[in-house]
């Protein structure tokens, strides 16, 4: 795995979504590219036959791990790797010793308010590396535990992304100008529009253009999505019939199809060609997260395969970047001269070597948290880390914290059928209220109470072995046989859930630093995370709860919203306890901006500090808006690719 004898045009740290997109674009333009991927190889996607001797994975194995998992979390198909560890949703617990109190009413301003001043962090025992990672890869400093996870292997987090491929709204790029909140992006919707086209083509997005021209979104003349909108579910149509013509807080509750990176019926494109990516059409396995069994849903291995097929890419797996090396001979704005990386043979075994990869240009595309961590770890030459003149690396960590509402419809809606989500309510994503509170989008879930309520298992168990009042394990008699069957048929078929993706603003109190005390099996620091919600977002939660009540009351839903299975991130606001769920959207930690004073990169994701370094990913996003960030990330990656090619 020694790449030091070969000189590359571009070295990319990260073989996931952004890394694959960049490798493909650059290799297609005849650049020689090296990709360093921290995690394991995916069968069929190696360039060095020796990689077949190491740990590799494939969909069959991942599906098997999924089938055999008791808790079918997003991580369940993807075995932990102690040399390139990743977080797990099962590890999200309230962060001691912080307690959250509600902010005081205006006439009680002298009472303590959220958050409490931080005492020194509680010690976390990391001496047994593997056991400690098993308890949670993140060192959570709170006050709120960070709720989202990611993957480190070929293909990255795309393996378990849901598939939602929404464009951002024009106002999302101008939050400061229009709503006097946070910052503007250093580019506009129009700047990104062509790149959205490219990204939707590469992924293969199924949607109806007419439904997507919301909140000022425009498309290029005659634009056609690669494939037609995925047919909506019975639940989608039920909600549309129930509330689609109503409004909440001035926002339309119209239900529209959600553009998705999963194969539908192909369209004839603007250029006259008929779209075909060779993959199967969705069969409604209802498993997009954590894994599509048939790759009807796009994942980044599709693009990495195309990159490798050009013959211009070398990819080294099980190669963890640990240090970004700067030119010692240039005191001001030194260029990057190499990436040090450690290799390993097995996911629990020792380091097998340290090497340096060299190229003309360097790209860090390692996911928001790992990219920031790498830049901050690379601090032997500049104490503040690489690319960090602004001090913003690792800062502004954001997610889309989600509010879930769930209940029983009066009539069956037949959950657990179709993709996990086919439609949503996009009206609440923009409006005057954004001056005061976070916006959100409403995702309609087709998987019943699976996420908040552990359905169908928990509900069957409640019927068959009801929990005794003392919560102990003593046996109790429940129902069985035909009575059980009738109960499932009459009740479970009415389950549904909605989820609100709530906007977060960049916040100095939300950041990640490399831990000084806790390390992974290679001795690489683990991420230490400080995270919270501000009033803007908590007001968004309050509105989400009110919207849920409104929708549920209008539709005569039996409201079962309560304490979800994943309750580790709870907070209290105005006396109400909320249970946010991470959406898997990790953003902000190496944001773009207008100047080097308050941002890490320019609008092309080029570091202000190092002319040959690009940092690309959802970490590039200065604000979160409400759209699932992946499509935007890919558009940004293509924009960065163009800029990189132009810079040669």
């Amino acid at each position, binding site marked *: 795995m020694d790449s030091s004898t070969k000189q590359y045009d571009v070295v990319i740290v990260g073989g996931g979504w952004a890394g694959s997109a960049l490798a493909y674009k650059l290799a297609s333009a005849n650049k020689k590219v090296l990709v360093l991927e921290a995690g394991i190889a995916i069968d069929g996607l190696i360039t060095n036959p020796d990689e077949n001797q190491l740990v590799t994975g494939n969909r069959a194995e991942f*599906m*098997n791990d999924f*089938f*055999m*998992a*008791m808790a*079918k979390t997003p991580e369940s198909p993807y075995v932990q790797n102690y040399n390139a560890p990743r977080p797990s949703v099962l590890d999200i617990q309230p962060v001691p010793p912080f307690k959250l109190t509600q902010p005081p009413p205006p006439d009680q301003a002298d009472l303590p308010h959220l958050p409490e001043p931080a005492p020194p962090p509680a010690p976390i025992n990391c001496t047994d590396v593997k056991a400690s990672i098993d308890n949670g890869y993140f060192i959570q400093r709170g006050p709120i535990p960070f709720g989202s996870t990611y993957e480190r292997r070929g293909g990255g987090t795309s393996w378990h992304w849901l598939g939602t491929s929404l464009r951002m709204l024009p106002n999302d790029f101008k939050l400061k100008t229009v709503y006097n909140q946070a910052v503007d992006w250093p580019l506009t919707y129009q700047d990104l529009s062509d790149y959205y086209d490219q990204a939707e083509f590469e992924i293969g997005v199924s949607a109806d253009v007419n439904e997507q021209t919301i909140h000022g979104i425009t498309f290029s003349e005659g634009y056609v999505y690669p494939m037609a909108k995925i*047919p*909506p*579910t*019975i639940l989608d149509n039920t909600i549309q019939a129930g509330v689609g013509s109503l409004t909440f807080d001035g926002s339309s509750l119209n239900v529209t199809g959600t553009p998705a990176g999963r194969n*539908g*019926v192909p369209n004839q494109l603007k250029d006259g060609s008929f779209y075909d990516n060779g993959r199967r059409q*969705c*069969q*409604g*396995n*209802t*498993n997009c997260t954590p*894994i599509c*069994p048939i790759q009807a849903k796009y994942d980044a291995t599709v693009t990495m395969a195309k990159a490798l097929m050009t013959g211009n890419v070398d990819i080294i797996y099980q190669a963890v970047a640990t240090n970004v090396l700067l030119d010692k001979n240039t005191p001001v704005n030194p260029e990057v001269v190499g990436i040090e990386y450690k290799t390993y043979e097995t996911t629990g075994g020792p380091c097998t070597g340290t090497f340096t990869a060299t190229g003309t240009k360097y790209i860090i595309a390692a996911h928001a948290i790992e990219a920031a961590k790498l830049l901050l770890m690379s601090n032997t030459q500049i104490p503040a880390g690489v690319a960090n003149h602004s001090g913003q690396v690792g800062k502004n960590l954001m997610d889309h914290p989600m509010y879930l509402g769930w209940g029983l419809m009066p009539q*069956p809606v*037949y*959950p*657990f*059928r*179709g993709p996990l989500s*086919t439609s949503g309510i996009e009206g609440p994503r923009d409006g005057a209220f954004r001056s005061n509170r976070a916006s959100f989008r409403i995702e309609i879930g*087709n*998987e019943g109470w*699976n996420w908040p309520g552990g359905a*169908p*298992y*928990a509900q*069957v*168990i*409640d019927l*068959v*072995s009801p*929990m*005794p009042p003392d*919560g*102990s*394990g*003593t*046996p*109790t*008699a*429940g129902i*069985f*046989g*035909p*009575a*059980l*069957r*009738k109960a*499932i*048929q009459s009740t*479970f*078929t009415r389950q549904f859930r909605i989820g609100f993706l709530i906007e977060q603003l960049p916040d100095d109190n939300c950041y990640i630093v490399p831990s000084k005390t806790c390390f992974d099996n290679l001795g690489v620091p683990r991420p230490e995370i400080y995270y919270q919600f501000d009033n803007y977002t908590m007001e968004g939660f309050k509105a989400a709860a009110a919207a849920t009540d409104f929708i549920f009351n209008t539709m005569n839903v039996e409201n079962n919203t309560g304490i979800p299975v994943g309750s580790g991130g709870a907070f209290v606001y105005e006396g109400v306890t909320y249970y946010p769920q991470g959406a898997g959207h990790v953003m902000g930690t190496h944001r773009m901006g207008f100047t080097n004073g308050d941002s890490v990169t320019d609008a092309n994701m080029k570091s202000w500090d190092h002319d040959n370094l690009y940092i690309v990913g959802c970490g590039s996003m200065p604000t979160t808006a409400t759209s699932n960030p992946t499509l935007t990330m890919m558009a940004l990656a293509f924009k960065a690719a163009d800029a990189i090619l132009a810079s040669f």
Partner: protein
Amino acid sequence: MTLDEFIALSSALTGYPASTLLPARDTQKVAAALYAELSLSTNNIPAAQLDQLTQVWNSISGTPPPQLEAAVNTNIIQNLAITRLAQNIIYLWYFGIWYDLTKNPNSFLPLKNIDHVVSPLAYTNGLVWGEMGAHPMGFSVGEFGYWANVPTLPVIS
């Protein structure tokens, strides 16, 4: 407990006919895999409980169908000495999961337990999914767009 006893008891507990649980043309061998759980030593099934469940079942298995359900309820489900074991059999068929008998199945605790999925085919043949007119998450033979149509739920006899 013999395989035949297991199937007959399972039929009464799950509400599905024996011919569904152990089809004449058995392509996926789910019944055999679930039955094998009763002999798996790591499941720590107290022998006395299994014997008692077997004997009780045999004593009522001849009950004519209209009264059988009530007999199962009285003699097995309400009999707290063997109810958890009987309920575990329901979970085997509905989920393809064997739950640790010493804890409540709806609890994650204690963290060290022997809850486990029996096999991928046991999971994909779990009864709960079809009961809802659906399919196991991660395994569907439906055609594109089937989700727009109202499914037919299985008949309860």
